[in-house]
């Protein structure tokens, strides 16, 4: 039972980081991108591969994951400089689908649909530290570091510039802001945080396969961001906690696994629809929604 609770707690922490990182784009920068699970996957596979092939320890594996995620975000951030509105949404979506098909098809690198497992004690700090609780503590430290970073960011000039781009990009550019640099760095930050979470996910689960990184995971993370209050620190965390814990309760209901998977999907979809239709632009943390 302790094992199970610590597993759910780990998922809550990891998805909180994912939701917080997507909130940089959705809440602070005002861009709706369905590509967060792709960065999560880049981080997961990078961590798994450097651990398996080069025997990297945990900090190095996570570092590699963060770097790989930040670099991969260039594809979407550079396209966001040229494309607006639904063109941008489609380009982020295409990136997500493209990476998923790479995870699924690059058999030699990712293991394809049958997944990739991490052998032995590789990727742990040492052989002695391998209990799930210790790992949960390490992941929580990472999450708190992310929250602290975002907290400082919100109060700093950087955060205010992001908000100015969100509210009126042309005005921000007119006032001398290098909007391109801010967008690219915000994307890199967001993707790096997600990829770090992906690295922890891979090292914690010891096994990853492409289903954890599909577009439906991206939608799930977006639902977590929108559920309470975007552009805040507590909103994405509460959203992630709710949307991880509530479907887990289905395990105790008297239904089959396939049915509970369907119920999960229905819950996520229903949350997305209801939140946006009922709350309007407020669901995205803004009062008006003109120049998007």
């Amino acid at each position, binding site marked *: 039972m302790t094992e199970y609770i610590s597993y759910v707690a780990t998922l809550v922490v990891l998805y909180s980081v994912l939701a917080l990182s997507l909130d940089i784009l959705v809440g602070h920068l005002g861009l709706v991108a369905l590509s967060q699970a792709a960065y999560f996957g880049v981080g997961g596979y990078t961590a798994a591969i450097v651990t398996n092939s080069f025997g990297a320890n945990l900090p190095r594996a996570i570092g590699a994951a963060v770097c790989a995620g930040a670099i991969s975000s260039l594809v979407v951030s550079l396209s966001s400089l040229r494309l607006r509105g639904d063109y941008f949404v*489609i380009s982020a979506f295409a990136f997500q689908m*493209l990476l998923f098909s790479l995870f699924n098809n690059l058999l030699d690198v990712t293991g394809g649909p049958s997944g990739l497992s991490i052998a032995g004690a590789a990727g742990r700090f040492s052989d002695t530290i391998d209990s799930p609780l210790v790992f949960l503590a390490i992941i929580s430290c990472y999450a708190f570091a992310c929250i602290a970073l975002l907290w400082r960011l919100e109060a700093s000039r950087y955060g205010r510039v992001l908000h100015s781009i969100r509210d009126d990009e042309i005005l921000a550019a007119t006032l001398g802001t290098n909007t391109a640099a801010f967008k690219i760095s915000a994307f890199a930050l967001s993707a790096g945080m997600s990829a770090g979470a992906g690295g922890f996910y891979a090292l914690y689960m010891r096994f990853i396969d492409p289903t954890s990184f599909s577009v439906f995971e991206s*939608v799930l993370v977006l639902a977590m961001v929108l559920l309470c209050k975007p552009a805040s620190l507590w909103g994405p965390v509460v959203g992630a906690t709710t949307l991880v814990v509530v479907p887990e309760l289905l395990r105790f209901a008297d239904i089959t696994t*396939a049915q509970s998977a*369907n119920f999960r999907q229905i819950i996520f979809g229903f949350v997305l629809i209801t939140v*946006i239709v009922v709350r*309007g632009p407020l669901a995205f943390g803004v009062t008006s929604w003109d120049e998007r």
Partner: protein
Amino acid sequence: MQVLADGIIATCAFLPVALGFFIFYRASGILHFAHGALVPIGGFAFLTCIAALGLPVFGAVLISIVAAVSVGLLIERTLYRPLRNWDKQGLATFVVSFGAYIVIVGILSLIFGDVTRVVPGQPMAEGLIIFGARASVARLLIVGAAIGAMLVTWLFLHGTAGGLYLRAIASNAFLARAIGVPTERTHQWAIGVGSALAATTGILATFDVGIAPNAGLAPLLLAVIAVFVGGRTEFGVLTGALIIGASQHIATVWIPAKWQDTIAFILLALVLLFRPGGLVGRPPPELES
């Protein structure tokens, strides 16, 4: 020859979905992702009518199209219309639409299970040889339906008042509303015609590869790619669909079939980067700067 025929049949299999998606996208600018969920709705409604209720084929086709059209109209009325006032570019609507897709597919799997179903007895699976290429009767029907869908789309856009309104809204929504074009009614017409086209794809799939709750996802993705690669006219969509269908199948001569999706999305990414307006026709006004 067989490769070419397969490519054309693959194109025809998703062309009605692409045209349906395109009609509503042109009218409203909404990336109507829930369109993909109407394919299995059509297919399962048809199977239920045929297998469980024992209705004749014609009646079953009619009922399934009506079912898909009503769901489409319901989505437009309850989900898209409340958002139109504040979500001008349709980004939030896209997210809502994705949510609707997930909910509908989840409900369909709860009712029908996750297995792929075909019409009992497989009445149209026997093969024919035409111009040296092999095809079953079901696949010929799919080709016929694609040609029919192209005709319906063209006639709707250029031969009816609704189509005229639709083109007026597509060219300038604000002015169209100002001179009294009924925006709401036109959107309903567009989503209705689009849903009917999606339902035909679902019905025909029950004769060929079968239908599963998630059977609409692949044609929908190809539809989105076709619209963005080809361009925003019905002939642009046709061109995009042919390029996607043909390139996927011709490429299988050299590289394994599992890379088909990758090829399609790389094509989409390249077009978005270098010619965002699509390959056919003029780029839309918002890209001319």
